[in-house]
């Protein structure tokens, strides 16, 4: 584990440090090569197509949060819904429902630089993407937009592939608030 953590940590630290993404993907690639726990099958429940449209005003009396969209046809789906494709391995609350976005933390929270990794298939371009699930920490959690997707999740014996761990390390408070999903690149064996 120590070794894997070193890689994960170094990778995300360096990412935070704006260094070459290539090298990161490279590192990941080698790491992933060793971990065939990453599924190459389409993510059945991540069929984001329906959850997409924002055309027309929502029913004024619906009580629902209006459908959101990424605005990018190659990144289809609603970032406030569990079935958005890149959430295929999120077990937790979606930051997009707490004042953050699919990739950013809500105001007043802190994003953990250490995290765990999943692979999700993008239904639009049929590519498998390596996704970093970063927890936002120190805010107020209360179960809004709670998702339980476990694509590629593995028992905690391999923590970097486990979504039950509170990934709030290297931050002021280790109290979990919500989770974002950041695309790191395409799974190496698909390039």
């Amino acid at each position: 584990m120590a070794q894997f953590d070193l890689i994960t940590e170094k990778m995300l630290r360096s990412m935070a440090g704006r260094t070459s993404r290539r090298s990161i993907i490279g590192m990941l690639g080698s790491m992933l090569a060793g971990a065939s726990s990453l599924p190459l099958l389409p993510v059945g429940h991540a069929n984001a197509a329906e959850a997409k449209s924002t055309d027309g005003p929502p029913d004024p009396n619906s009580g629902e949060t209006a459908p959101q969209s990424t605005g990018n046809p190659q990144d289809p789906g609603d970032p406030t819904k569990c079935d958005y494709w890149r959430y295929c391995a999120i077990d937790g609350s979606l930051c997009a429902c707490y004042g953050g976005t699919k990739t950013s933390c809500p105001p007043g929270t802190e994003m953990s630089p250490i995290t765990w990794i999943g692979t999700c298939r993008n239904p639009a371009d049929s590519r498998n993407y390596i996704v970093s699930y970063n927890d936002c920490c120190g805010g107020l959690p209360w179960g809004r937009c709670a998702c339980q997707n476990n694509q590629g999740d593995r028992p905690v014996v391999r923590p970097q592939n486990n979504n039950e761990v509170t990934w709030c390390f290297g931050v002021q408070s280790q109290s979990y608030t919500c989770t974002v999903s950041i695309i790191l690149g395409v799974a190496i064996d698909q390039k």
Partner: protein
Amino acid sequence: MNKAIGCAACASLLAGFSTFVMGADFPNPLPPEAIPRVETLPAKYPTGWAFLNYAGDRIELRNVGSDSREVKGQLQAHDSATILISDQRPELYVADTVWSRGTRGTRTDFITIYDKQTFNVVDEIVLPGTKRALITAMEGLTTFTDEQRMELVFNFTPASSVTVVDLVNRKVLGDVEIPGCSLVYPSGKRGFSTLCQSGTLLSIRLDEKGAVAGRSESKAFNPLDTDPLFTASALIGGIRYFPSLHGRIQPIDMRTEDVKVLPDWPLVSAADASGNWRPSGWQILASDEQKLLYVLMQADAHEGTHKDPANEVWVYNVASKARLKRLRLVRPGSSISLTHTADPLLLVQAGERLDVYQASDGSLVRSLDLPGFHTRMQIDPAR
């Protein structure tokens, strides 16, 4: 195992197929995404935003003015927490109480100072004596005075007092005993008034050090035995309007130290008397920039219904004391507020919904969910 091999097989098949698809629609993959980012908020919040205080357990900043209906951010709260929103400084002030072991251990009362844009904690002011009133979050537990330089915190142990806090220098200035009186409403340039069990209003003038500089008590005007005033009020042109349980409205002029209790008048005309209409709910009334008064009204009211959700909102011109409109709600509401704009939105908490109406014509614009909400709400639209 067999299964794993099976997967590998279909995976490679898929790979072959998907290569073709990729080429066709999206030649390039999505790029790697930005480094970790935390959202920030505008220095001046849009008027369509409002703070929703979930009974002092949780405070949510919500975009109620757009169909996106987004949550913009949240502030933690623990026990009877109340929020004050400054328009003098880029700060928010949350008075709260925690215990060192959750619901037991050492108690700490404190004011957290948040940055309005980042929601980061700027500072904290600990309130001495663990005496802050633990009462369902509502008006009168805390207030600004001295043009937001001071915050006043109502204490109840069950003895009553008020803690005076200097928000500029972030320190506690002292306490003012107010035996037999409850809650704080700003009055004069620097001071407050409080409702007393004797039916009077006690008004305290403070000096710049937060010490008592003057004290005056009104004649008894609040008939607690027969028709007491609610403690919720609406401010119109410096005059504070309190409804009574049976439907009077009591104006009090708190603009100067010389606080004046003005003549009361009935919300319900003789013509409507048969309907047994009374004010009822939690945050029971509101006012807008047009100096109109909005009151939650409940038909067939009787003993014990004064906190029930109400079916209608009645709109008054306080100058003419005339009712201008009756707005029927799509579902009974408990707390109301108005956005601070020329053409305001009427916000109505109704069970697990926040219904947003056009105040002008009472039409429902949208309805937001309040998941898991089962207590009382205090609504604070952005200024």
